[in-house]
């Protein structure tokens, strides 16, 4: 395995933006072995932001990033969260038609895939989920809704996500879940954090006792 070349860019006085082929692996490496002065690590689609305490010597941080060997950069499987879904979303039928498949096929594929939280963004607790079992590209709505309810399970691009609270949104709605994504009074406010694995369960199957 060859060492992936990483580009490190300065982002203000006290943060470095690291290009990463596998942001979650770098996130895990920096969790296990923090850089000097590290106060936050934020993975995104292709980058990891390393936020440092004010006054941190950025050269030391760069040296630390260089020292992380590829072998250290393993994605550590996160905990598995099961999310029950009523697949009754407004966009379910038109989306299935657009994708040229039966509604039940779309639901079945969404519920069969094992998803992983790649990163969190847009709103507190909004996890961007990706899956190796999912290759459907879903366009965003041309006209975003002014309000999407909390618990809406949605698709956009190659991502799936669950709206943690009511907000405007342009993702296509598959259904809703009663599972709470975000609770500021809980010890762990976000149900979904980078690396968490997610499986959606069709509530109809549960009702029938299929599993």
């Amino acid at each position: 395995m060859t060492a992936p070349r990483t580009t490190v860019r300065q982002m203000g006085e006290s943060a470095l933006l690291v290009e990463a082929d596998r942001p979650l692996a770098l996130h895990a490496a920096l969790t296990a072995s923090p850089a000097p002065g590290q106060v936050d690590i934020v993975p995104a689609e292709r980058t990891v932001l390393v936020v440092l305490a004010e006054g941190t010597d950025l050269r030391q941080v760069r040296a630390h990033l260089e020292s992380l060997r590829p072998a250290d950069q393993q994605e550590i499987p996160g905990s598995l969260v099961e999310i029950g879904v009523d697949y009754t979303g407004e966009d379910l039928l038109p989306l299935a038609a657009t994708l040229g498949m039966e509604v039940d096929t779309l639901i079945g594929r969404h519920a069969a895939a094992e998803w992983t939280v790649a990163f969190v963004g847009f709103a507190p607790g909004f996890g961007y989920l990706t899956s190796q079992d999912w290759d459907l590209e879903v366009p965003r709505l041309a006209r975003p809704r002014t309000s999407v309810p909390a618990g809406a399970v949605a698709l956009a691009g190659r991502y799936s996500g669950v709206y943690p609270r009511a907000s405007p949104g342009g993702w296509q709605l598959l259904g809703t879940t009663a599972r709470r994504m975000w609770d500021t009074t809980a010890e762990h406010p976000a149900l979904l954090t980078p690396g968490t694995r997610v499986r959606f369960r069709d509530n109809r199957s549960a009702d029938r006792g299929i599993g």
Partner: protein
Amino acid sequence: MNPALRILRPGPLTTVQDLGRAGLGSLGVSRSGAADRGALRAANRLVGNTGCCAALETTLGGLALRACGDLRMAVTGPPVPLTVTGPDGSTDGPLTVPTGTTFDLADGAQLRMGRPTRGLRNYLAVCGGIDVLPVLGSRSRDLLSGLGPEPVQVGDELPVGTGGGVDPVRDAEPTTGPIHGADPIRLNLILGPRQDLFTGSALDLLFGQVWTVTPASNRIGLRLSGAQPLERLDQAERPSEPMVPGAVQVPTSGQPVIFGPDHPASGGYPVIGVLTVAAQDLAGQARPGDAVVFTSIGTDATTIPVRPTSA
């Protein structure tokens, strides 16, 4: 009765702010906190609070309140008219108080804040701090995510804590801070991380052109307007990246946005540069119509971050 501040008039926008919630970026939570952190720290220092105490952040003044209990307080930020009147029935006439000094507000006395002629935000600290319920370790209101206490309303009674009295600095150690509303406001910026996505002339324009703060500006971001937009080499869609306070993001319009404390956690438009910490405080005092110029203080691996002296 427990000490409190009773709000008689909130002004255009008054929120509770402390130094914010650092370290929660991976949950999609931005730092939030005071837009002018230096002014907040100075206010807390004046009343003997620890630096993490919460204070009131006003926007263009306008705040009026009554003390419940005898309270010691201070207002920092740009010079703003402050008038103290005694409790109902008292013969104490209105008293003018300067900004940047400590004063006492007796039980039942009222403080009225006018409007600053330059600058935007004042900080009212009270000995003991504003003791509303913290959310995720901070009492700051984040206007984008909705975290923290609601903006202050008429009739609110904000509890005052008992954690003050550390070491009040009565004779204001230089809290001069920035020159509020300097014309133009000079903002030091570190280029990057995405300056290489822009044309050379865009970089020249960034530093050579005078930018105006537009009315569509708030704690989420300062939207700037310039005669000529900043051009990118291409308009390809880019993966979303984490954002930081002070990031100067350039949307498709080419008119930059300086992210404030309540910035979105991530964004898809490229960040051409990031303000220094000191410049972020200056930006926190910029009001619509103010002129802004950027100065580069370097970039890349060899750059040793410079803490510029604020004017």
